[in-house]
């Protein structure tokens, strides 16, 4: 029977599923054990798997991520939580220089089956240093897989796939989606990395979105319908591997593409995808591809400012309509 659970519950469920299956899966991070995570994404795991497999750490992001890497080199499949994705910056050397490059540098001697989970994104008034959408940081580094689910079912399926994947995965959980509910079927759930989902089909324009921008794009698409515009919405789900097949097919079908990106403007994942479409489906395009992003600014804390900064359904609608004029 299908069950209705929240995105945050899905995180714990996915971890429990994988930790039950494979005793080499460990979870470490700040306040993940006794407190069940500061976002309450890991409650019950300590009780279920004990204090060795679910373990609180000091505030030492380099040690956390470094420990995950070293453990992955020596027989574990660790999942490390970095509380906010912004804090990836405090251990970026371990992530971008060590974890990402070690398989290549050792010519395949060292495999790093590990997952770094982290709370990403804005909408909760935490300001510039606790709200960033940093999927593009990870995407820009060769050797990292990058996952960012938009709903509870994807959280479980992609978390399971990430933990089972032999390569390092940066798994972005969106803070603004934690309370969202979604249906999940019974039984073990495992998905595939590298598969986008066409979550709404539409013949006029294509919206490419990720994580919290998916529901927002869907909302915009519904309203655009009232304006006579049928918008398809693609949930990218994974940035690496990237489902260029689906992206190119959808882009070619409508010839009018928009990215909806929470990240600041420059060098976002949208820029990459625009460039791919332009190089590979140029002659199918009927109009310039437009990126709908946060402007190139840090994020403000105050409600009206944060709302103004992020792409809204209204801004998506306006942008699409204006471009169709």
């Amino acid at each position: 029977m299908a069950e209705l659970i929240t995105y945050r519950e899905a995180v714990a469920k996915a971890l429990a599923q994988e930790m039950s299956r494979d005793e080499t899966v460990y979870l470490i991070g700040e306040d993940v054990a006794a407190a069940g995570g500061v976002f309450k994404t890991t409650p019950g795991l300590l009780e279920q798997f004990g204090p060795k497999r679910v373990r609180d750490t000091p505030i030492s992001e380099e040690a956390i991520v470094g420990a995950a890497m070293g453990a992955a080199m020596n027989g574990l499949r660790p999942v490390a939580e970095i509380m906010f994705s912004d804090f990836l910056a405090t251990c970026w050397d371990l992530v971008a220089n060590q974890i990402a490059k070690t398989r290549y540098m050792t010519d395949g001697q060292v495999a790093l089956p590990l997952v770094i989970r982290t709370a990403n994104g804005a909408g909760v008034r935490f300001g510039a240093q606790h709200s960033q959408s940093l999927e593009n940081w990870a995407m820009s580094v060769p050797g990292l897989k990058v996952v960012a689910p938009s709903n509870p079912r994807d959280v479980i399926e992609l978390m399971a796939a990430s933990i089972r994947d032999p390569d390092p995965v940066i798994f972005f959980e969106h803070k603004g989606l934690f309370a969202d509910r979604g249906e999940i079927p019974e039984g073990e759930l495992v998905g595939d990395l590298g598969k986008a989902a066409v979550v709404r089909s539409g013949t006029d324009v294509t919206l490419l979105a990720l994580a919290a921008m998916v529901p927002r794009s869907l909302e915009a698409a519904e309203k655009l319908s009232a304006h006579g515009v049928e918008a398809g919405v693609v949930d990218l789900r994974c940035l690496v591997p990237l489902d260029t097949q689906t992206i190119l097919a959808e882009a070619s079908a409508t010839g009018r593409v928009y990215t909806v990106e929470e990240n600041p403007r420059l060098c976002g994942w949208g820029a990459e995808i625009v460039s791919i479409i332009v190089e590979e489906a140029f002659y199918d395009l009927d109009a310039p591809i437009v990126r709908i992003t946060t402007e190139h600014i840090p994020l403000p804390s105050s409600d009206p400012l944060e709302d103004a900064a992020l792409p809204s359904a209204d801004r998506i609608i306006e942008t699409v309509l204006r471009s169709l004029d």
Partner: protein
Amino acid sequence: MSEAVSTKTGSGARLGIYRMMLEARRFEDRAHQLFMEGLVRGTSHLATGQEAVAAGYAAAMQPDDLTFCTYRGHHHTLLRGTPAGKLMAELLGRADGVCGGKGGSMHLTWVPAGAMGSYAIVGAHLPIAVGAAWAAQERGSGQVAVCFFGDGTTNIGAFHEALNLAVVWNLPIVFVCENNLYMEYTPIGSVTAVERPAADRAAAYGLEDIQVDGNDPDVMYEVALTTLAKARDGGGPSLVEAVTYRHAGHSKADPATYRPPEEVEQWLKRDPIPMYRRRLSESGTTEEELLQVEQKVESSIEAAVEEAKASPDPSVASTWTEVWADGGFRWRN
């Protein structure tokens, strides 16, 4: 831990310190209420119970000394002299907030008062404070940088780098660890290799081992005077561990159920404010004087709350200002 009651603190200074602690407490209590009313958004981290640390240092600092603190920094920012109304307005995300609503509770800065920022990523402000002290040294400005942080912060790399560089360059800086026994929800003892997270590390930087009662404002004032003077006189950095306790949870979201009730109870008995009031009373401050201070604080914070509430939302256009020194956000020509 030194338990000695200072005899150095004069009675004028003492009343000032009492007033400061009250201000901080009242500010936090009101911030909490406003949060409950849904007016403070995002998150907020109260320093209720930790006022003695902030008051002791703020009372001892010179006006152009520089304070660096954390997201749990309302008290430090306020006591350096930041207008309470503008501070509260920032918590409410209003136009008149110290940062125009861009910063919020975790990111309070008021340069005119030497409040050089509350930093919300653990550890980052230690090297930054080191830099400010370095500039003070090079410019011969006579300023001292005082950098406050928690016990949990002693385990992050930036702590180590900052302490080492500050000592090697003999900078005018005081590092003050407010050891409130917990990082967010995890007891500091369970994730730290030594018992006293800061004091037991002092020797690793050639520094004196200083642990003090962070709930005793006289003790704090005294260690502030000593460490500030040392820094100002070219004696270099100090690392002070002030043991204290936060009365409430880590942040507004935290009911703090992980703490043993006896522990909480014991520390509530050591609430610095009633303790200090008793001490002042016993050493000759009249009830009238105390009440006067209390009323003044009460009404000044109330005025601040009103001022904050009356402040409008920031203009949406301000979302796109002050990325760059030209005031704007344009990244292209």
